[in-house]
């Protein structure tokens, strides 16, 4: 089947099997390997992307369900391949260690900050509940999201 998607602002038409998951479309067809697969029960959130403005786990979305829709991945977060404010805040706060979960946290936090530019700590923690990190203990991630990276809440 043919799937038409806009990813990070660029249009793509991809020919894929109906059982293809969105995460595999991104990783294997579009070579956007910044989105990772960490489990098989949609528990870990490493594959989180933004689909029409909402954070979703791309391992539980069929590529066909994304047809005609707009997807944002970690590769599109910064302007012109540079790091955006939230990404820089992650570096400043030591919010990543092995980095495997990081893109999922960045996308979940981006969706949160667009909806709620000045979240409380408990709102941040609640919004990140669907993303697992085994390295950081979360505190530095929460600090990065709470640091109001742009002053306007816009990541």
């Amino acid at each position, binding site marked *: 089947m043919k799937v038409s998607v806009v990813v990070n602002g660029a249009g793509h038409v991809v020919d894929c099997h109906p*059982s293809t998951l969105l995460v595999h479309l991104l*990783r294997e067809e579009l070579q*956007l*390997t*910044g*989105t*990772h*697969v*960490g*489990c*098989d*029960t949609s*528990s*870990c959130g*490493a594959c989180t992307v933004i689909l029409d403005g909402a954070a979703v786990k791309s391992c539980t979305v069929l590529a066909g369900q994304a047809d005609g829709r707009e997807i944002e*991945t*970690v*590769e599109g*977060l*910064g302007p012109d*391949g540079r*790091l955006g404010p939230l*990404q820089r805040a*992650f*570096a*400043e*706060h*030591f919010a*990543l*260690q*092995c*980095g*495997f*979960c*990081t*893109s999922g946290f*960045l996308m979940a936090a981006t969706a949160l900050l667009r909806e709620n530019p000045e979240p409380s*700590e408990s709102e*941040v*923690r*609640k919004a*990140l*509940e*669907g*993303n*697992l*990190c*085994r*390295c*950081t*203990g*979360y*505190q*530095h*991630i*929460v600090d990065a999201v709470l640091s109001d990276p742009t002053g306007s809440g816009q990541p």
Partner: protein
Amino acid sequence: MTSIGARLPRKEDPRILAGKGRYVDDLTVPHMVHASFVRSPFAHADITSVDLAGARETPGVVASYSGSESAAGMPLIPTAAADWAPPRTPLTGDRVLYVGEPVAMVLASDPRTAVNGAERVDVDYEPLPHVLDPWEALSPGAPLVHPDRGTNKIGEIHKVIGDPDDAFARAHHVVSRRLTVQRISASPMEPRAILAVPEPSTGHLTVWLSCQGPHTLRTWLAHIFELDESKLRIVAPDVGGGFGSKLNLYSDELAVIWAALELGVPVKWVETRTENFTAGVHARDQIHDAELALDSRGKILALRSHFVGDLGAYFHFFTPVVPDLTIDTLTGNYDIPSVDIKLEKVFTNKMSIEALRGSGRAEATFVQERLIEEAARELGIDPVEMRLRNLVAPDQLPYRTPFGLTYTGGDYPALLERAAELVGYQAVRTRQAEARKVGRHIGVGFATYNLLCGFSPSGHDWNPMKFFPGHESTLIRVDPQGKAVVYSGLCPQGQGSDTVVAQIVADQLQIPFDHITVTHGDTETIPFGGGTHGSRGAVVGGHAALVAAERVVEKARQVAAAMLEAAAQDIAYEDGVFTVVGSPETAVSWHEVAEEAHFLKRCGPMFEPGLEATAFYDPPDVNFAFGANAAVVEVDTETGKVKILDFVSVDDYGVGINPGIVDGQIHGGIAQGIGQALYEQVSHDESGQVPSASFSAYLLPSAMEVPRLTLDNMVSPSDTPLGVRGVGESGTLASPPAIANAVADALAPFGVRIDRTPLRPDVVWELMHPE
């Protein structure tokens, strides 16, 4: 100019934050095929037949192998740590010994087709009686995991030091408990992954592997497959967490390599999370019958623990020595003159246990700190006071433990007192009393730890493992512009050691941090090293970098001496400028020296060209880091849910090289400890299945379960040039017993015994409702 101690941003971050990290699953090479495994659904069974026809008929399947067809051509996999190991081949041929054991492998043009093909492999099994409980495994008539041995007992170590029998005979009080540290999983966010790329025309093989140290694995690979080590290259690209679980070459990984060599094409395999829980190594799993002999003031006279270590069915590299670590660390920071420790190691029909962040020492800390807490309660002594009466005091240093370890630094009572102060101990007691009046149950718990770390001096008792070097390596190469590339033998999985190493080198070379690039994890470019495990990054790898940098500066000094027409011993190096002592106007810069070192235009051949040095640093001894944790919890007695209200960690890791990285290590260790204390358990049902084999059943703590952590530190530099001790595993040791002690404190009015973890709501509820 000093980088050490500065909160410099990590060199690793920009690439990963941009989504440009490179983990094994992100790699593709031409003509690559993908593997999927057929695994045993039985804990113990004979394989009566394997029919690969269905797989071979699946369109897109390239090849399929069963252990029963291929085992004869496959090598045996040895262990690093024992003279004898149960025979293990990449694919099992005749009998499976645990659920998840690989029995067949299907290779296909894409990963989904490989899975579909594997699902069409038909294996017939004849189930055999199995044994899962270690005590049952030791009893007569138990099913034998390895019948040839005639017993499930792997071995026994019994250490009696001092006069424990006398101490127990004359004790004012004895506290006894059976304490269980459950089986857990490392659960790195990136599962295991491998891409084996053979080059049949030359006989070379490159293996991209998510691992913790490529050199030792290269030696093992050459040994196992009888290959020429010089034709093998192992590369660890970005590694998404390891925590001890990626030190090994596993059966399935070896099957992938074997298939790549057989077929002459690249083979890739990425583990599923379910596989990581069944076929990835487990950890902990000890049961201690432990007791303390005490005098009337609560001074500990002796510690006895007779414990069993359930090692599973096979040996991975460290399997048989992990519980040994528990023995010699059981007295922790406490002054205990007499000990009687007996360990029995047992085979069961489960996956192997292995190293996991804090391995051996976390089990010891749980046992000692639960016992001391219970002793305080039974004697009516405040638990902080109880510990202060028994901790090794600063004036006892250097202190030799009953097991012969020598502690030379630190103030253990001060660390505990600081933790009590930061948690507001007296205020918590007041709050606890107030809460009890309205039926709420708050508890406070403490634990201290002593982390034996920095593994390990070659030839030392702590380093009995074959083909595991105790040293670490660093090569520093300075280019004509004066910038340096550092090739470190460490193999980080998120520890940030590229940054730490750069900070150490920057201070020695006196060049900007940004002029240093650190690379690691490739046997083709990096000098032979040990990799990253056992809190050794800074204390072993850091010193290798330090010594290499000192050698580079020494070489630069010779070049400067030639340029300045002076003797090398008369050349001073400060702020990036070489001067002749006594005439500071006679100077050359680092950049000028670096250029001259390569082109010799000013001096001619007065020195060997080049500006680089290699160092192999073998630590003179193991090291110790220590600290104290305090936890405040509230237990909902209606639901059994434990909520952590406050958590304090006061640590002495010696000199900290980068505070952001060090704090992150402690945070992460504590989060894993919270998981061990409250949520995580690899469970086996009666048939030996693993119902916990997913993140929906094996619960890692999320941002909702890990509270904001309060950290403080004290600095007692180690007896090493950098003064560092170790920090990678620190958070994992005291956090589980501190939380368990807090739960016990909260539930003290109910007479509930906390003898095991995890303290999940259902477990706590059942403790509250024993009927």
